[in-house]
Structure formats: C-alpha cells, structure tokens
C-alpha cells in the first residue's frame, strides 16, 4: 500500500520537475525555511536542533579525554555519527548503522574536518599522553529529506558553541564545569542537490530524494574554499551542472552562515 502511494507521489514529483516545478511550490534553487536552536541537552558539551522545512534533527557533542594516535602525538580528534531513528519516519528501521547512515555521517565529517576549521593541535592536553576527543552524534527526529545539510548545519553550530571540559589537578574531567571554547578557523557548510527528471533542485525533500536519479553535495567555506564533495545515487552530472551547483553552494552557504552568526 505504502509502495503504491510512494510510486504515485514520486511520479507526481517527476512530472512537475520536467516542467521545472516542485510539489511544494519552491523554485528549483530555493532552500526551505531553516531554524536553529541550541543548548537543549545539559549533559552535552554542545547541542543543537536544526529544522529545514519538516526535517528536524538533534545533534550533541560529548568531549572526553583520549590517547593520541601514534602518528599524531600532539593532536586530538573528532568523530561524527548519524542515526536515522525509526522515531523520525515510518520507513526508517533500527539496527546496525545502514550504508546510508554511514555515508551521511562521513560526508558531514569530511566537510568539517577537511576544511581545517578545527585545529586538532589545540585539542592536545599533554603530548603523547592525553588529548581531547570530540564525539558529535546527530539523530533524525523527523525525516523529510536533506539530512546532509541539516547535519552539516547542526555540526557546525554545535562546534561553534562547544564548551571544553575543565580538568582537576589529577587531570580528570570535572562534570558540568567548563574552560573555554573551540575557536573554529572557518565556517564550512554542505549544500545538497538532487537531480530529478533532468532538473537540478537544491535541498530535496524525502519524496524528491526518492524520485531523484542523482545527488550531489559540496561543502564550501566563508573564505572561498570548497572542502568536500560527494556525488551519490546511480545517475550522473555534466561538468556544467557541477559548476552550477558549486556556485550555488557558495551563494546558499553564505546565506546560511549569516543566519548561523545570529545563533547564540
């Protein structure tokens, strides 16, 4: 039954796309309304809820003390995880992380990591012995497409507002006491596009993703760098299309960065 409905709905998305239209009336290069809230979880070193249209996710950061990697004795590290909870959509299932969840987390991670926004050397406590390890996990609360950009915004805002734990004399974390923040060197953000019926649309909804033949994301920074790209799903893009999407990513990224600046 659901499949029949889905088939009908995606057919509608495709038909409209060929005329250059979208089901929700948006322009092809129009992003849904974004809202950002922070600081909901007291136990987290940073937390953020991002909504893009009907898509809603929560991200939280835990910072712990870890051992440095043998090849980077003076550097801390971060790790990003993503879960599409069955709470968030009737099609999401629980269980081991799916390939989709792994890709989602890794693309969000790369955009941030490769931009060198976070200086891992500043996460060093004692060379060769103790470093800060940041675990950022984000969870879908309501899924309606484009978890990539939602995750990217949530990750950036969470790191922007992250508090570093305070250490006692023995080098142990004092719970709920903090000592400074992470200063990010730049502000990387992902922008994701779907190709539906040959047309390129930004910020795809769940149905648009279902109807899409290809997906593309680019992470851009406020100082003019591209820090990550990912093409997904079976179809293809021409170089002109990729160039168009990169330009759009900078333009849209800058707009969202302005909104992020207002977030406390």
């Amino acid at each position, binding site marked *: 039954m659901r499949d029949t409905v889905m088939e009908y709905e995606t057919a509608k998305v495709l038909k409209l796309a060929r005329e250059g239209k979208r089901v929700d009336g948006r322009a092809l290069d129009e992003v849904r309304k974004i809202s950002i809230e922070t600081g*909901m979880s007291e*136990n*987290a070193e940073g937390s953020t809820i991002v909504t893009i249209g009907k898509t809603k996710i929560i991200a939280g950061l*835990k910072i712990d003390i870890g051992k440095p990697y043998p090849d980077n004795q003076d550097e801390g590290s971060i790790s990003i995880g993503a879960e599409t909870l*069955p*709470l*968030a959509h009737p099609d999401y299932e629980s269980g081991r992380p799916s390939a989709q969840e792994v890709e989602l987390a890794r693309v969000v991670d790369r955009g941030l990591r490769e931009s060198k926004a976070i200086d891992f050397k500043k996460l060093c406590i004692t060379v060769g012995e103790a470093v800060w390890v940041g675990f950022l*996990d984000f969870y879908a609360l309501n899924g309606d497409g484009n978890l990539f950009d939602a995750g990217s915004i949530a990750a950036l805002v969470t790191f922007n507002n992250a508090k570093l734990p305070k250490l006692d004399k023995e080098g142990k974390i004092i719970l709920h006491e903090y000592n400074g923040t992470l200063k990010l060197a730049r502000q990387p953000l992902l922008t994701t596009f779907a190709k539906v019926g040959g047309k390129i649309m930004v910020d795809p909804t769940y149905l648009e993703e279902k109807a899409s033949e290809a997906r593309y994301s680019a992470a851009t920074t406020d100082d003019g760098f591209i820090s990550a790209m990912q093409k997904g799903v079976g179809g293809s893009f021409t170089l002109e299309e990729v160039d168009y999407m990169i330009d759009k990513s900078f333009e849209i990224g800058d707009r969202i960065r302005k909104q992020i600046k207002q977030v406390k």
Partner: protein
Amino acid sequence: MDRKIDYKKTKKRLDGRKMDETRPLSIKTGVIENADGSAYLEWGQNKIYAAVYGPREVLPKHTANPLKSVIKVEYRMTSFSVPQRKRPGPNRRDQEISKVLGEALSRAVFVEQFPNTEIGVYVEVVDANAGSRVACLTAASVALADAGMPMRDMVAATGVGKAYGELVIDLNKDEEDAPDAVDIPIAILPNSEEIVLLQMDGLLTRKEWDAVAKLGIKGCKQVYEVQKKALVNKFELSEAKGKGQATKTVKKKAVKKTVKKVKK
C-alpha cells in the same frame, strides 16, 4: 555523594524539594510530524521525544500475533544525553527497559482490536537525569493517545524510593547515588490503580514499602493530571486553528474520545 547528608535533619532535599515533591513536568503533543502520534516531555532535566507509528504491518512477520496487536517499544538514549558519552546502539539495559515499557502499555491499549499488526512506540532520551524510563513511559502513553489509539486508560508513571534516610518521590541522580538509595519505577492505570510497571533496586523494610507504594500511586496520579492537560491542550489548539481537513477532524475526535475515557 557525601555520606553525612541526612534528610531527616535537613527536612529538605539536595535540590530544595520536599520529600513528596516531583520535579517540574511538562508534556506537549504533536511534535513529530511524520508520526501518527507523538509527545515531547520535560521532567526536571530529563527531555524525551516519543513517537507512535501504527497499527501497521508487523516486521519481521513471525512476531505477529493473530489475536492482538504487538506493541513494540524502543527505548533509546542519545550518546550525549548522559555525562559519560553512551556508545550508540541499544545496550542490555535499553533492551530490558523497552520490554517492560511495552508490556506496561499493552495493558492500556485495546490491542485485541488490531490483530496481526504492530504498534511501534519509539522513545528517545536526549537529556537524562534519573527516572528516564518512567518519563518515557509517561510520554509514550500520551503519544499513543495523541495517535487516537483506543485505550482503557492512560499509563502514568513515576520514580519513588529512598535516599539519605527518607522516603522520597522522583529521585534525581544525586539521590540515586546515595549510599542507602532505593529506586522504584512504578506505573499505574490511574483510574483502576492497576500496577503495570514495577521494578526495584535497594533495601527496604516491609513498613517502608507500604509507605512508599502509597507515595508512588499518589505521584502517578499527579503525573496523570499533566498527561490529561497535554491532551486537552492539543484538542483546544487544533480547534483554535480551525483546520477543516478530514484527517485532522478524525484525529481530533479520537483524542477527544480518549480524553473522555480517561476522565471517567
């Protein structure tokens, strides 16, 4: 915690509460758009999202029951909801809690009306400070009513027990860590006072049990009042919006029915 703390002397609890005073509780319905019913609950520092999907096809098929609907609860915590990061994915504690919560809710819902189906109940803790399972059960019950599920009663739950020499309601983390701590999650159908969830760790005398059981039932009834308020609020809100869509009207009626039923 300090072993010298004695509630018999202080007459007040560590966070200033009276012995029979619960932490502030608030519940909101309709927070997850994709779900058939949902609720967001704040109970002290605890913050919980609950979503209900169903009745729907049972997966995997062999778990179906030809006589009734199977309520499948998934109790989960985000990695950042606790001071020490929790590894993602359900652990043994999550599995046990999910099981007992499902069993408690099965008594409240007329499951025999939907044979061969499942009702998926997903609860996600995004911030925790002791008592998250009873908070989840309370939220899940509201989400089920929000979904218009036929129910013989709500399930209202609370924590109760002993800390620092006194019997107390709704223990927080500091009290759960007391040397003499006793933690008793309890849930009832408030109208019949049937007990549908009861667990305990710690040492109690028979006399103490009698007193604490009374305290628990009293606490559950207070929780029930907040649950009813959340449902009435939802009904009034959708009324005020004056949405004429058929589906909304059906839902509203169902909620109204549920509220009436629980009021009896």
